[in-house]
């Protein structure tokens, strides 16, 4: 069903969906904190959800850089849509890079044909926010797994076709010895434990749930989660999240540019007061764009080199991308608002920036920057280069 127009790139086609579908729905998605159905129907129709699946398996065989560009385009118009798209692609990357058995090949086939939406449940109540430890465990009953997890957030859980759940490998395993289980929708029971009424990323619909799942043991991925985290989750997450924030920054800077141009047109010959501030904003925006695009390109260039991916230097570099990008976006949106002034502070009108501002703050909080900085501080103790 993936209708491919080979002459146009994935990001070009996604850009069109972002502008024509995600953008017009963004205000409503934000106001109602609802799932962006229309954008995902359109993304499914062009096969975008299987973009990372290799060509020989029916996907687009897209690079992380290309999926990143697509994410950025969505982020320009609706950050929630972009964030869901990014989180989905992170799970796809795990499935592609770590799902070696026929069961997972079959799941990739379904992903291509049915354009399944994949979610994840990594955080857990009582682990203090450290996703590299779990309290719940995979229990083995004959040839089947059973698990129960109290997750304070699961993004778009109610709209997903499968949820990738971290848990200790066995009930006797230490908290850090984790595996990732692919829990299919039909194998899941979700008991809601809260609401999702947040400042930003409202359309990601991420309340808490107790998730209970039982299914074939073959749905537990072979590689340990620690391995997948270093080789795939960490670099892909930080690159793609970065593209979401870059998309928000793109929109803010575009707003500021439009505003200054409009002011210049009304008084030709005089430089508008916001023009100099716009220079600062554009300079920062370039830093963010180079940083984020560079991160994806860096991953693509070493994506099969396990020695590089599991090195301390690479982990530090990816942590740096997250820390820098998530703080830059707040600064860029804030400064853009200063350029636009009251027209951006208004909740109505063509320059409104409230949603951009609220969404921008999400980046530094999701996987808290202080936790990441603490991790980098540790790694720097041993890093030599």
């Amino acid at each position: 069903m993936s209708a491919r127009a080979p002459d146009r790139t994935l990001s070009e086609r996604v850009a069109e969906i972002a502008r024509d579908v995600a953008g017009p729905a963004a205000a409503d998605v934000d106001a109602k904190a609802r799932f962006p159905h229309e954008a995902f129907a359109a993304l499914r129709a062009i096969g975008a959800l299987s973009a990372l699946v290799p060509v020989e398996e029916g996907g687009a065989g897209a690079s992380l850089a290309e999926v990143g560009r697509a994410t950025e385009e969505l982020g320009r118009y609706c950050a929630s849509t972009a964030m869901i798209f990014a989180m989905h692609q992170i799970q796809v990357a795990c499935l592609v890079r770590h799902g070696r058995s026929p069961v997972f090949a079959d799941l990739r086939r379904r992903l291509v044909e049915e354009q399944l939406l994949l979610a994840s449940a990594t955080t857990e109540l009582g682990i203090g926010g450290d996703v590299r430890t779990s309290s719940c465990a995979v229990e083995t009953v004959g040839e089947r797994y059973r698990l129960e997890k109290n997750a304070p957030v699961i993004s778009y859980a109610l709209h997903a076709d499968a949820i990738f759940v971290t848990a200790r490998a066995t009930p006797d395993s230490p908290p850090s010895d984790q595996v990732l289980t692919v829990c299919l929708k039909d194998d899941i029971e979700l008991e809601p434990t809260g609401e999702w009424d947040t400042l930003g990323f409202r359309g990601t619909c991420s309340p808490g749930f107790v998730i209970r799942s039982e299914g074939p043991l073959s749905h537990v991925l072979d590689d340990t989660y620690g391995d997948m985290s270093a080789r795939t989750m960490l670099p892909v997450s930080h690159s793609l999240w970065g593209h979401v924030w870059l998309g928000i920054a793109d929109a803010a800077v575009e707003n500021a540019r439009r505003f200054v141009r409009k002011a210049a047109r009304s008084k030709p010959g005089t430089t508008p007061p916001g023009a100099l501030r716009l220079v600062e904003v554009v300079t920062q925006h370039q830093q963010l764009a180079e940083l984020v695009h560079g991160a994806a390109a860096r991953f693509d260039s070493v994506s099969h080199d396990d020695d590089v991916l599991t090195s301390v230097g690479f982990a530090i570099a990816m942590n740096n991308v997250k820390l820098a990008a998530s703080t830059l976006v707040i600064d860029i949106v804030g400064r853009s608002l200063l350029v636009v002034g009251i027209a951006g502070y208004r909740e109505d009108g063509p320059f409104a920036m409230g949603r951009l501002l609220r969404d921008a703050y999400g980046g530094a909080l999701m996987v808290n920057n202080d936790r990441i900085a603490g991790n980098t501080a540790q790694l720097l103790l041993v890093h030599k280069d």
Partner: protein
Amino acid sequence: MSDTATIVRTVLEEHGRLAVPVDGLQNESDLYAAGLTSHASVNVMLALEDAFDLEFPERLLKKATFSSLGSIVEAIDEIRVDA
């Protein structure tokens, strides 16, 4: 058992924060499955650098180096040969 292996075991016992006693582990046992976290592995490495008076080069700073007692001893032997 070589002296190196004995010291590595002592360091692991002290800084590895494993879920099981180091005495019960084989040279090939998976330390991550025994509860070694990346946080603890950093401390183990710092303690090894102090105990053996050497520095782990960048190329050995990867998960595989600390995956078992055997691989740690191998890494230390390698660093000493290079020195």
